């Protein structure tokens, strides 16, 4: 059954084998393939000569170029840090006021701050610093911990309710859940708080409170004075000392609406901002501080 056949199309002979109708031609290896084999093998051989390649017990062939990827990356990282330092050292050296008034330096802040902000801050505060539920907007003029560059820089450095030893700390108690206030009291409080920012409360006719509109507000006011004024102030304008927000404006960290406010009073709040001290250099923190202040100006 071994018989050579010639394939009429290519002119090559078959190998004489057949498997269920499949035959093979005995076509020689094309020259081009031999050439490619030689080229790729020479490339590999050359690469082995110049670069680290073959293991030798507990060491390896180092290659004629003495390449070492670890040393190379360390060198490149150090060089990059040097060049960044040179470009940005004016920002490090000058005080906030000088930088804010220097157009060139502020351009640098915007260019570098944007990437820093988007890589580190935007997950919570939004790409434009607009904030989202639970994370305050940085683009408005309302600052929980004060609007000076120094205050903002401190918040970035130590965080809020973070694990940094100097961390800012701020907590809204769970007045309802921890039974500091009754349900009816909380509802009255909600009505009062909504009225502070000029809203006519929708649910002043709350089911649990038999009081009419006229009584709910004074009652809410007295509950507020007893329980809330310590942090939020007697005028409810908040305090940058305690990080308690202003309740008389129309800015709501967790969203407006009586349901949300009720939830906040009932279950309390304890937002966290991590400390960035371990992750960002002082220079980067300074750039971010200025960048965040800049967001605020763009808004205006």
């Amino acid at each position, binding site marked *: *059954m071994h018989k050579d056949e010639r*394939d009429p*199309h*290519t002119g*090559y002979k*078959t*190998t004489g*084998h057949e*498997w*269920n*109708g*499949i*035959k*093979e*031609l*005995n*076509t*020689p*290896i094309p020259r081009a*393939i031999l050439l*490619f*084999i030689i080229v*790729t*093998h020479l*490339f*590999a051989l050359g*690469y*082995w000569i110049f*670069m*680290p*390649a*073959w*293991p030798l017990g507990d060491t*390896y*062939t180092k290659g004629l170029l003495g*390449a*070492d*990827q*670890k040393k190379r*990356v360390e060198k490149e990282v150090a060089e*990059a840090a040097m*060049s*960044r330092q040179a*470009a*940005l050292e004016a920002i490090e050296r000058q005080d906030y006021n000088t930088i804010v008034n220097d157009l060139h330096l502020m351009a*640098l802040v915007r*260019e*570098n701050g*944007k*990437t*820093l*902000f*988007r*890589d580190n801050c*935007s997950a919570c505060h939004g*790409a434009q610093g607009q904030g989202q539920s639970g994370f305050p907007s940085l683009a408005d003029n309302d600052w929980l911990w004060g609007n000076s560059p120094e205050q903002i820089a401190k918040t970035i450095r130590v965080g809020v309710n973070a694990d940094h030893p100097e961390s800012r700390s701020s907590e809204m108690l769970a007045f309802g859940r921890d039974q500091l206030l009754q349900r009816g009291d909380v509802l009255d409080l909600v009505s009062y708080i909504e009225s502070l920012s000029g809203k006519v409360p929708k649910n002043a006719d709350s089911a649990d409170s038999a009081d009419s509109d006229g009584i709910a507000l004074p009652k809410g006011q007295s509950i507020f004075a007893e329980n809330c004024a310590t942090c939020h102030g007697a005028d409810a304008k908040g305090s940058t000392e305690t990080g308690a927000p202003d309740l008389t404006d129309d800015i709501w960290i967790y969203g407006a609406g009586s349901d949300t406010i009720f939830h906040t009073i009932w279950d309390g709040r304890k937002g966290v901002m991590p400390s960035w001290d371990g992750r960002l250099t002082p220079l980067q923190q300074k750039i971010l501080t200025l960048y965040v202040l800049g967001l605020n100006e763009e808004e205006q």
Partner: protein
Amino acid sequence: MIQQLTKFERRFGLVISVLVAGAGLTLIGMSEDGLLAIHGTIILAAGFIAALLTGGTIHEPEPDAKRLESYYDDPIKFGIIVSMIWAVFGMFMGVWVATLLAYPEWTFDAAWSSFGRLRPVHTTGVIFGFGGNALIATSFHVMQRTSRARMADQLSPWFVLLGYNLFCILAVSGYFMGITQSKEYAEPEWYADIWLVIVWVAYFALYMRTLARRREPHIYVANWYYLAFILVVAVLHIVNNLAVPVSFGHIKSYSAFSGVQDAMTQWWYGHNAVAFFLTAGFLGMLYYYLPKRAGRPIYSYRMSIIGFWGITFFYMWAGSHHLHFTALPQWVQTLGMTFSVMLLVPSWIAAANALLTLNGAWGKVRDDATLRFMFLAAVFYGLSTFEGSFMAIRSVNALSHYTDWTVGPVHAGALGWVALITFGSFYALVPWLWKREGMYSSKLVEVHFWLALSGTLVYVFAMWNSGVIQGLMWRTYNESGALAYSFNESMVAMHPYYIARAIGGLLFLAGAVVGFYNIWKTTKMDTVQSSVPSGDGLIADDASHSR
């Protein structure tokens, strides 16, 4: 179908089924967490159903001895249908995870549907479910035809196929519940891994026993590739999955490797899974169905030889190119890179051998969508192996690594090569196996071809664009020497390409659905005895063969 098994095989099958059910029961009994008990229940149910099927027919008479004159094709038919079911499922999951990348809210806030769980469902579904069943089914067909011998027994092929699918079901159902050992493409936990070893050894034994019965003096190339696939996958699977379970009552296990050794073992496994599962096995398919369909002899036996040995030798070294610029020592990276470059030539020899085989049959390629599937598969094979070697070069890898540029060529290989050669082979094989005049609709084969091609192109071009843009954005510095773009901005830039990718995947999925429908309808057509090519139905004896 079960009546075709001999009485002894049915009894033996019953014993195995009871053992499997017992294993399931044992897992339930030992379970310290609910998860292992759920998997024990699945195993118990599988064993129970198999015991019912074998036990219910145990008193049926012995099958007709005439069956031994023909090939044993029932398991192949089963494998093809199951493979197509996995294809539709796995590709649907692929479209879903692609959509998640553009619209993350499509997880519907559930744990089981988070990206991290769905993604391995997709990869396992298409690679092991679709690809694995296709490989097992076609290998059963090719080894019998090219050996001119019936399979060594009738029980082993069922054990292999059903056992393998049990493994796939354990894998996929586990991911939904969060069971994973976090090794890419080797996610299933220790008990599923042990089961696969048993199945795989039976597969290897069946293949060798059938080859030993061959009535051809020589072993055909396709068998070399299938054997390499079976043997090497066994080695890879066992080594990479060496692990110690927390306890025998717990799903969780810890790998025997740690740190950079773990990474290296994983990518030695991962890359050779591409090499021997997704390349060698499917080259076996290519080497049988392409010349058969084209009616042409293989272009060069010599190219087959150097292609095969080049691929098997060089691939083994290439895994470390997945770990360029990592903690892996540089000399290991060098070896991975240089062997990847040398690997290009044998890869292209295999592709060229396939394409040159079509010389003299280009008219058929034009007219016959089935052959065109195989032709295009060989082209995409050449394309993706080129990119693989190219991206293994360190300076290229510096740009491409961790970007969508990796995902692009992977899918040029997975869609363009693996899936297309499988569909082409199925379209050739289904009418032969079921003895039908042809496919139910050749128009639908044509429709599938264009859906598959356009889907692949849309997908691959989207990923090339997005990958290169991503890579460049990540390495662009501003004048101060700081990064010019945030990661966030590179994500925004990817968004349109991610939408395009999902559309490409959807086109490809639509093609697979059309293909499944067409195959299903074909199985429902009338039998036409004369449509079977000579030598494909009955086992030819030596006298009639050498006529």
